[in-house]
């Protein structure tokens, strides 16, 4: 592989990183909001969210990305491919994150909530000061695990023409006629990124366990 091949590869890696990063940030936040809405058990809206989560868990990312990218123009919306890719990844990861947040919320200690109420905290202060900081710690391992899944699913956005770390290996081999080296380097980069997340997940688990004592 020559210098320009390396450069292309790094550009592909960067595309994967920033698109995944944006989707993770949006998915974690949106997941929290969905979890809160589901906890309110508003009729109709609750059923819609259950359906959404069930659909999002069953729909392949490739199919979702194509669906969004191809059908948006028929509604008169002109979606940039990057936006469509981020939207697909976010819609997918939000469903999983919502379930992670929801279980953290439901498993939250009733005793601690009572202590907050007895101290005169309103539900909002209790949520913000007592529950959320702990939910973040207990949910973090699950959220990081979901981040690894998102990165493993991110090559799906190649289907709508985004040149990510997987797709770029095609571009490189079209010039060099040697597909194997760029694919192997891409493998190594993926392993490095996901290996980092696995390591972070272990640290997060240790912290979460300490809180549980």
């Amino acid at each position, binding site marked *: 592989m020559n210098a320009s091949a390396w450069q292309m590869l790094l550009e592909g890696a960067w595309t994967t990183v920033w698109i995944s990063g944006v989707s993770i940030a949006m998915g974690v936040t949106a997941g929290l909001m969905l979890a809160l809405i589901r906890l309110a058990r508003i009729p109709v809206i609750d059923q819609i969210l259950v359906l959404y989560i069930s659909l999002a868990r069953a729909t392949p990312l490739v199919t979702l990305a194509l669906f969004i990218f191809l059908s948006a123009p028929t509604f008169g919306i002109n979606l940039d491919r990057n936006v469509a890719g981020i939207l697909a990844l976010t819609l997918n990861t939000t469903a999983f994150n919502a379930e992670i947040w929801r279980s953290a919320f439901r498993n939250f*200690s009733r*005793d*601690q909530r*009572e*202590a*907050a*109420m*007895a*101290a*005169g*905290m*309103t*539900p909002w*202060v209790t949520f913000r*000061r*007592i529950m959320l*900081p*702990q939910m973040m*710690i207990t949910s973090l391992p699950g959220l990081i695990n979901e981040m690894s899944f998102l990165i493993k699913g991110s090559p799906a956005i190649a289907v709508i023409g985004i040149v990510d770390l997987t797709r770029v290996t095609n571009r490189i081999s079209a010039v060099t006629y040697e597909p194997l080296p760029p694919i192997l380097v891409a493998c190594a980069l993926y392993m490095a990124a996901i290996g980092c997340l696995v390591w972070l997940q272990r640290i997060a688990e240790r912290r979460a366990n*300490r*809180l*549980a*004592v």
Partner: protein
Amino acid sequence: MFEKNTSERVGAEQTVPDAARSEQAAVSIRHLSKSFDGVEVLRDVDLEVREGDVVTILGSSGSGKSTLLRCINWLEQPDRGSIHIGGQRIGVNDAGRPMPVRELARVRARTGMVFQSFNLWPHLNVLHNVTEAPIHVLGKSKTQAEAHARELLEKVGMSPKADAYPSTLSGGQKQRVAIARALAMQPEVMLFDEPTSALDPELVGEVLSVIRDLSAEGYTMVIVTHEMAFSRAVSDKVVFLDKGLIIEQADPETFFTNPSTERVRKFLEREES
């Protein structure tokens, strides 16, 4: 009819007119009833706690004493009856509707509660457990809250552990922090829900001695407990609950040496053995 009789046996305070009562009492409970799934846990309970008084509530398990205490700060909502804290009704506003959460929180802040299982917040260190509510409920400044918290931790003998996290403390230490946390809100009345029941026997003493100090300082306290000797030593009034009814209410001397009901006599005999 039966319930009515028992509550009238209560004693002298009964004759004080309602309005006057509410003004002078730290806690005034009237005609309180509560059931869980059709089982009556509290039946037409009346109770007065005067400012500066220490009232201990005794009774066998399942007698409703914890429920009574938890009704005082509205952690449990009674089905009927009223509770006034320092003259202000809790849980129900002037229009007779359920209180908005903010208002309820404000009334709750006039009480402090210590739980059987401590219920410290594990993500905060000892100092911040104590300052959390003063800062975010009373709106105190951080420096002010911390200065007050350090005084209180000193009082309960926990100032060396101010930076420790709850998971590193013993049960007795946790409970002393929990007491400091409740005191930090400068409550008009302290509620203790079996504060030593979850402790190893050798740790009970350190917590009881803190509570005894508080009573000497004139704090108004309502204490649910199983510790007979402690109850006798600190109480101004002992209340005995049986199956949701207050069947005896007396000063500790009378209660422990000359109880008027057979039920209490049996209870005391069993506790002694």
